[in-house]
């Protein structure tokens, strides 16, 4: 049996691309992994990139960009000037991972029932909330269910009974919930879920991409994608307001490991302020013997379509609600996010489009281009469902070329953000050229070089007025698949 493992590993049938011979597969598996060794994200490189002021040459180290995914605002928020701003000092920020921020946000929302099942990289959310309940810091029922399917089923039961309900999952767990996702939204239950974005098997991968939540984009949940840990905290608090006012469930998505396991400074709101912003949950309908209702009845053909149309209308209304709740949140807590963020995009010829932590990396690159006077910008999509089509037309309609960078793919088609963006312009006379870059799948780093490559390709398209290949891959090891990108 000696060497059995190697033998098995090298077969690696899962990675077969198209119809290939066994010989080719053997060759493929024999190639070196070719990854640069990951360094421990130590303090020193952080210090190098933190204060821009100490770096007069502006050499902020694109080679270390990986460190900046999600960490970008570190530089902005922990500056010396802000700490001594003469207004009584900024509140002390806590150093929190994305998962911790999510758990604390659920606690601040005073959830009644939590029902969740552990999965990497979401696990810490479950652990933290268990601790809060065990320590009496959070007066809630924590249900340690036997699966994600039951996790969401229990949330449905609890929410229908009138409890404020929270769950968290990732990847395979979200897939296992799929049936219940549709039912939760169809029954119009305001459940809030944190989803730590992780790739979908096979091959098994615990690392980040957004294939999981994107794959359930049609399930009728509001989907919000966060760029950093502060946004996770704030978005979950906002999510309960939005969910409960529209009777729609909300999925708050954040990149696994890149945010879920990365420590960032987070301004934790005061409980009394959250209480003022988020009053007690008072459902319009709930299961109550005093006033019996039937929920989840059979929708005969004479009614089903209308019920679905009403659901779609609620989803459209969610756009307005998200903006209003965000504005109110901004007034109270000083932070706003909107449906999408425009970053140097208003006068840009080339606009990049992203969701999640990748936005931070792209902002860095956009800064470099701007320093040289080149009109490159970014639009970060925060609300993927409802999709901000009109807002996007307004934000990128003027651009010559748009490059979508996204960590998902609809096999046989293109990336979901690209498809929806393209569809937004279907009846618009003048639309920018659009390119789609599939990248960062299964935890692959998206590096500065690749972002620049996408910008160059978009700039070429803008110049020539044509796109030769609309859907491409970034950072692909061409040798492995025998493709040219």
């Amino acid at each position, binding site marked *: 049996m000696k060497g059995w493992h190697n033998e098995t590993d090298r077969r690696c049938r899962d990675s077969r691309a198209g119809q290939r011979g066994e010989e080719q597969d053997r060759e493929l598996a024999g190639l070196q992994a070719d990854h640069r060794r990951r360094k421990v994200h130590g303090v020193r490189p952080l210090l190098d990139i933190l204060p821009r002021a100490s770096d007069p040459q502006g050499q902020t180290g694109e080679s270390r960009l990986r460190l900046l995914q999600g960490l970008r605002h570190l530089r902005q928020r922990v500056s010396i000037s802000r700490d001594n701003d003469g207004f009584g000092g900024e509140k002390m920020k806590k150093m929190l991972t994305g998962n911790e921020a999510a758990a604390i946000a659920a606690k601040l929302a005073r959830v*009644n*029932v939590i029902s969740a099942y552990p999965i990497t990289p979401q696990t810490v959310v479950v652990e933290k909330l268990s601790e809060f309940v065990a320590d009496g810091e959070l007066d*809630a029922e924590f249900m340690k269910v036997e*699966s994600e399917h039951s996790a969401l089923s229990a949330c449905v039961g609890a929410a229908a009974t009138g409890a404020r309900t929270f769950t968290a999952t990732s990847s395979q767990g979200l897939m296992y919930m799929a049936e*219940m996702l549709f039912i939760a939204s169809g029954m119009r239950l305001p459940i809030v879920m944190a989803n730590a974005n992780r790739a979908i098997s096979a091959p098994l991968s615990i690392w980040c991409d957004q294939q999981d939540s994107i794959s359930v984009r049609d399930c009728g949940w509001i989907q919000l994608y966060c760029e950093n840990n502060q946004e996770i905290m704030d978005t979950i608090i906002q999510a309960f307001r939005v969910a409960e006012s529209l009777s729609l469930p909300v999925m708050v998505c954040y990149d696994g490991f890149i945010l879920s396991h990365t420590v960032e400074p987070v301004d934790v709101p005061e409980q009394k302020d959250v209480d003022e912003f988020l009053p007690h949950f008072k459902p319009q309908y709930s*299961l109550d*013997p005093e006033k*019996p209702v*039937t929920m989840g009845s*059979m929708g005969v053909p004479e009614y089903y379509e209308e019920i679905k149309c009403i659901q779609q209308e609620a989803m459209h209304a969610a756009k307005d609600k998200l903006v209003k709740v965000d504005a109110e949140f901004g007034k109270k807590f000083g932070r706003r996010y909107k449906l999408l963020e425009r970053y140097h995009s208003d006068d840009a010829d080339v606009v990049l489009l992203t969701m999640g932590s990748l936005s931070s990396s792209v902002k860095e690159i956009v800064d470099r281009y701007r320093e040289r006077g080149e009109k490159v910008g970014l639009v970060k999509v925060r609300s993927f469902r409802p999709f901000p089509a009109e807002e996007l037309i307004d934000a990128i309609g003027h651009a010559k070329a748009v490059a979508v960078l996204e960590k998902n793919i609809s096999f046989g088609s293109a990336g979901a953000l690209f498809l929806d963006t393209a569809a937004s312009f279907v009846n618009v006379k003048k639309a920018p050229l659009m390119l789609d870059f599939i990248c960062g799948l299964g935890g692959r780093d998206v590096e500065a070089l690749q972002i620049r490559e996408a910008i160059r390709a978009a700039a070429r398209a803008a110049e020539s007025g044509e796109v030769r290949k609309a859907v491409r891959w970034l950072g692909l090891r061409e040798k492995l698949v025998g493709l040219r990108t």
Partner: protein
Amino acid sequence: MNDKPFPESLIAPGHGACAGCGCILAMRHALEALGKNVIISMATGCMEVVTTPYPETSWRVPWIHVAFENAAAVASGVSAALKSLGRKEVKSVAIAGDGGTADIGLQALSGMVERGDNVLYICYDNEGYMNTGIQRSGLTPFGAWTTTTPIGKVKRGENRQKKNLPAIIAAHGAPYVATASVAYPVDFMNKLKKAAAIEGPTYVHVLAPCTPGWRIDNSKTIEVARLAVLTGSWILYEIENGKMNVTFKPPKRRPVTDYLKIQGRFKHLSDAEISEIQKMVDDQCKHFGIE
């Protein structure tokens, strides 16, 4: 619908259950026993479909249907919410058929019992997937015809005995597990009342004939259900904190053929096959101390 004939019933008439349906009887008895301070979480199945075609409902108690396999998990969620909202007077009740309990719903039920959730779970057992048109489930009895256990040249009906579900739930350490029959409504309702009063996971499994599925006349539901008990094919017992007690012993056990011959689903059985079933029933009765 004119519901005057049943003014007290918490389940309104006008539903779409078949004439002679044993399951809808079980529902009526259950609500009679439990009263109005309940929240019902029901699995997909006959009882869900016939009682709630939007925008109508037969339920005069709060009722929720979510999916096929998760009545137990939904009821657990309801129970957690009731606890969190301080509503101690309301009981969370899960109801599912044999498929939704023994097959696709077993994981959720196991979780519910193992966690000790305060839920009364009722399984109405009509011994097959009747809602989809009489397919075999894990609780279809030995020898029975269904559309997926047809009588062919080499295979003759269901070749396995019923999964012993009450024993599985009892093995979880549930404080109360009981079997019942729609032919013995007082026994059934007493068990439900006992189960509902216990704070924790309790389980009541009621045998309820399906007239089209069992191939019996609409008027024979109770007679067939009673014969199941009188022949020892179905035994009425309860397991309270691990202690087993048979609640009804048939005075003089009748031969199993009396139960089988009245049902079209067993009409293909040869004398040898009936003898085989008689032996199985005898063994079962011996285990429960029934002569």
